[in-house]
């Protein structure tokens, strides 16, 4: 198994008047676990299908290890896919399912046998070799689909929302297993999902897609801590999005005008931007202080609701600037987090370093105000 580097250059796909994928450029080094993240209809699956070869791009190229594969049939690409519905062959036994690809090649019978049993061992399903797919559970079928793809030793494995049909607990378990599998096998995984937690926990890098374009790509930590647009900030984790007007401030900072009465200093994000835009701060960066505290970046507010999460609590605060903040306060050391019943007056301290100025989205997806929900 060599290589597995993927390059998407100006990749475009149209269906009639609708542009599903709009000039995507991505560079994925060999051996990386890369996720395409976005809501339904953002173009992530279409992109994956173009890498697999099931759709032909209208413009641009799909390059694998430097070779242009855009017009090559799926059968001839060193790429294999794990489908959302698993797509196992119901009339064949598990071992025959896994052997299917090998039997299309000139591989000797004994080699087929040994590679199939190797693959089944890799996914811990050796004892089910003689069953039929309908006799296995969803999680087991998933693993058969994996074995069937990996037995061919592809350079790249494509996964199209493979865990979508499974319950939450099984999903978490398989997320860990998949990641371990990828590290063990060492090939490039291109993973499509709408689940941001999945993408953040499993990927080496990820790209957030919006209406056919890549809005931002990078490492999970960078994407979460430093989102560039409101769309990305809102998609990854919980964000407190606030509409504001940006003007000058001393030093390398910006002044954020919330409504008519309150000004914050922002120290992160696109500090050169001026005018109407959105700013954000992560719930865990807001500090709740006693009512009446004054100082930089402090806004009075009132608690409207507290959601107890066990390890932490979500405090919903209505600020005097008419914005609503969701604050995550956790217990630290031997100091339990303050009990804040609804109606408590507080002061919200938004540290400048955590106030991020976001630039407008490239795509046309409307800004969704994230109603306060418990983090998954």
């Amino acid at each position: 198994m060599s290589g597995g580097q993927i390059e998407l250059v100006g990749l475009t796909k149209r269906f009639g008047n609708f542009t599903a994928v709009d000039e995507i450029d991505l560079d994925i080094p060999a051996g990386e676990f890369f996720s395409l993240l976005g809501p339904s209809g953002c173009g992530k699956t279409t992109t994956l299908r173009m890498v697999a070869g099931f759709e032909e791009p209208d413009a641009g190229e799909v390059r694998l290890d430097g070779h242009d594969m855009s017009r090559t049939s799926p059968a001839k690409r060193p790429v294999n896919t794990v489908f959302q519905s698993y797509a196992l062959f119901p009339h064949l036994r598990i071992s025959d399912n896994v052997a299917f690809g090998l039997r299309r090649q000139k591989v000797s019978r004994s080699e087929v046998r040994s590679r199939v049993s190797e693959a089944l061992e890799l996914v811990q399903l050796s004892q089910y070799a003689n069953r039929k797919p309908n006799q296995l559970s969803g999680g087991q079928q998933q693993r058969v689909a994996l074995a069937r793809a990996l037995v061919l030793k592809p350079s790249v494995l494509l996964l199209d929302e493979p865990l979508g049909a499974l319950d939450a607990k099984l999903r978490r378990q398989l997320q860990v297993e998949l990641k371990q599998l990828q590290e063990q096998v060492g090939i490039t995984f291109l993973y499509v999902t709408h689940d941001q937690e999945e993408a953040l926990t499993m990927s080496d890098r990820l790209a957030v897609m919006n209406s056919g374009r890549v809005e931002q790509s990078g490492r999970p930590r960078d994407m979460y801590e430093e989102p560039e647009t409101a769309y990305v900030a809102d998609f990854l984790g919980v964000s407190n999005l606030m509409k504001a007007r940006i003007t000058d401030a001393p030093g390398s900072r910006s002044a954020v005008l919330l409504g008519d009465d309150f000004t914050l200093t922002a120290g992160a994000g696109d500090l050169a931007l001026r005018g109407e835009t959105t700013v954000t701060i992560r719930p865990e960066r807001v500090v709740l202080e006693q009512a009446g505290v004054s100082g930089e970046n402090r806004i009075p507010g009132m608690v409207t609701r507290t959601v107890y999460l066990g390890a932490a609590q979500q405090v919903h605060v209505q600020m005097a600037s008419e914005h609503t903040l969701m604050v995550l306060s956790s217990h630290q050391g031997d100091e339990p987090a303050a009990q804040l019943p609804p109606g408590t007056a507080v002061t919200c301290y938004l540290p400048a370093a955590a106030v991020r100025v976001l630039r407008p989205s490239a795509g046309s997806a409307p800004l969704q105000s994230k109603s306060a929900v418990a983090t998954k």
Partner: protein
Amino acid sequence: MRSGGVVVKVLLSAYFWLFLAFLLVPLVVLVVFAFDNSTTATLPLEGLTTSWFSEAFTNGQLTKALARSATIAVVAAIIATVLGLMASVGLTSDRLRLRSLTVASLMLPLVVPYISLAVGLVILLQAMAVQTSLTAVVLGHVVIALPFAILVLLPRLRTLDPSMNEAARDLGASDLTAFGRITLPLLGPALVSSFLISFVTSFDEFAIASFLAPSGQPTYPVFLYASSRTPALLPQVIAIGTLVIAFSLALVLVAEGGRRWAEKRLVGDVEFADEVSEENLAEGLVMVAKS
């Protein structure tokens, strides 16, 4: 209101049983008179006999007509199934243009009276200066059986996960191999079903066969009609008719039961087989109409 409800129930029940009797009594009558030791089909019965059956089987013309019908039906069923499969595959493609027109043309024989079709075919043959022949009958029967083949095959094709074909190609199979190793085996029971329905459609058909079969080579339904003018042949005809009914009944039972068993065996799952067995022609028609 409650008494009104009971009356309606009784009336419906009575209607149901009368209707059933209306359908089945002629068949029962047929079976009864097949064993009647009399040359006329009248009551009272004059003793039981099986001689009509043996006479029927020694009647060369009768057995030849039966054989002709069976052969034509087998050939027509095979051709209709193959063409029906091709049509169904075409109808599941996204890239089909003029979809409504195509479906309408394929389903046309269902609503056109066979006698009109028969006349049209005769005119066509004459225009092409081709003689009437059993081959012409086969072709005519393929035309009328094709819609039924599609009604059986298309819904079954639709329930197959399209990702399976993609998975096969992803794993290195050519389009043909993917079709032959994945799609076709999964269609197995439906193909058999299509064959049997086409067979029965062809075997029973009268109008086209009477117009297109050469005069000395009638098919079984045509022979039946002709021999209704010959009273002496009647008992034999009744005897054979009974056998044909029994055979058709057996065929339908075997076809349906066999299909369920085959589906189960194919994919090793009870739930899946039940889901497929819910399909019937009416559902098939709806699905085709929606396509």
